């Protein structure tokens, strides 16, 4: 048995297409009107000067706080990797691009630390879930978006490379919560 629809036929308003006038039927005045718009844009140099970003020379200004570019692994105040190898980011990652190998930590303030931390930047979808998941704010996304390489292998960032991204970007985007150390 089909459910009775909760609308009546009279609720429907049929909208007719507007009638075209003589000038519209003749096409030509309308076409000339359109050409005027086209020409106006063509000769408005200022408009494109304002809008176009000449990419390699000029760059867009980004919101550095929350732009989701290349990842970095943060260092704590003693220069050690802040990660505690809890695997939260690897679990949260929808693209399965993070691979961590943990080991017992040599430092007294935490149990584990990563001996391997690989991110496949080609698989990553830059959703930022890893950043959300991290309990010690060790993994963060940076405003760096110029990500290039000659091979797929080159685009798998290991621990050293991710730490070097941190060294490169820590002035541009300081660590969100530097006080968390250990876990």
């Amino acid at each position, binding site marked *: 048995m089909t459910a009775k629809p909760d609308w*009546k*036929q*009279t609720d*429907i308003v*049929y909208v*007719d*297409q507007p*009638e*075209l*006038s*003589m000038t519209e*039927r*003749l096409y*030509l005045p309308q*076409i000339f009107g*359109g*050409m005027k*718009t*086209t*020409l106006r*844009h*063509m*000769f*408005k140099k200022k*408009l*494109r000067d304002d*809008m*176009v970003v*000449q990419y390699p020379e000029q760059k867009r200004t980004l919101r550095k706080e929350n732009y989701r570019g290349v990842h970095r692994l943060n260092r704590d105040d003693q220069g050690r990797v802040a990660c505690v190898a809890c695997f939260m980011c690897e679990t949260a990652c929808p693209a399965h691009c993070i691979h961590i190998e943990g080991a017992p930590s040599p430092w007294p303030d935490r149990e584990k630390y990563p001996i391997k931390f690989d991110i496949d930047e080609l698989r990553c979808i830059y959703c930022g879930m890893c950043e959300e998941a991290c309990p010690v704010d060790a993994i963060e996304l940076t405003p760096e978006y110029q990500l290039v390489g000659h091979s797929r292998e080159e685009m798998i960032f290991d621990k050293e490379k991710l730490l070097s991204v941190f060294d490169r970007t820590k002035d541009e985007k300081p660590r969100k919560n530097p006080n968390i150390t250990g876990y």
Partner: protein
Amino acid sequence: MESIRNILADQFWFSIVLGLVVFGGIQGAVAYAILLERKLSAWTQDRYGPNRVGPYGLLQPIADGLKFFLKEDIIPANVDRALFIFAPWMIFVVALVGFAVIPWGGSFKFGWMSETAKPLVVQVASVDIGLLYIVAVSSLSVYGVVLGGWASNNKYSFYGGLRAAAQMLSYEVPMGMCLMAAILMTGSLRLEEMVDWQARHGWAVMYHPLAALVLFITALAEANRMPFDLAESEQELIGGYHTEYSALKLALFFLAEYSHMITSSAMMICIFFGGYLVPGWTWLNTTTTFGAALARVAVLAFKIFLFICLYMLIRWTIPRFRFDQLMRLAWKGLVPMTMAVVAAQGIVLYMGWSQWVTLPVNVGVLLFGGFVSVAGGKAVTGRQLSMRRVEAIG
């Protein structure tokens, strides 16, 4: 040196040299027409367009050409090989031979030629059926499109080819009518004589504005340009008839399209817009020196440039027609209107009236067409029967 002069003074050898020059010139013009198209489309969309290769991107056509040569030329597995290879060459050759009868710059004499020598004509082939030849050759180009679409063994390509065929057939008719009005008026099929007639009587567009307009519309349709580019409508047919083509063969299709634009604008200019002459500029119109001939070529080239800019502006102004709208415009709009124009021209000629009579007739036909379209109901907007308002029930 003397022998070179003798060879150049002979119309036959001069035509051969001119043919080679025109061939090269058209290739260059087409390459830069593509750059112009990209630049104009960029400007109308508030962009810059190609500006990296050379100053203002002026070397971009060379880079594009090199790229086309270096790309892998893929022939898909299940295509009709012979036709697949033949189609782009066919359309390319057909697009180029149309230039043979375009009068580029009237007649002239080299300084070293004797007083009694016959002046040279800046035209590769000065034949009696010039206009007929252009029409025949330019409508042959649809074979390239249809063959390309058929040989690709791809339904989208085939649809593109079929659409092109139907469209060309439809727009040949009003095009022929417009040309007929011009032929009746000038009494000649030779393009150079039409230009001379206009030198005496003023541009033909003044007598037949509607015919000139319809000829322009049909030229857009024949060249498969927007708003009539249904043969390659990207949203529906990927690339249309050239979907399966790559590298040099694809480049040939583009070369053909742009050469077609140049031929058709040259033809329109010679028939309706005074050809290589400028009204009132006596030196240009009558002098028979080599320099004056060059100046006339430059005038024609400038007019062609303006027409091509117009083609491109229209491309970025008007959206594509739907196929039924396209057919309706041709058969219910252009054909009856141009028929009326041809009939009026015939009557004017028979009765021996002033040629100016056709001007109000042209305007009247256009307005009457608009009136009929308003009075004739909603069909012209493209509204379908199934979209009619349904009376509310209950």
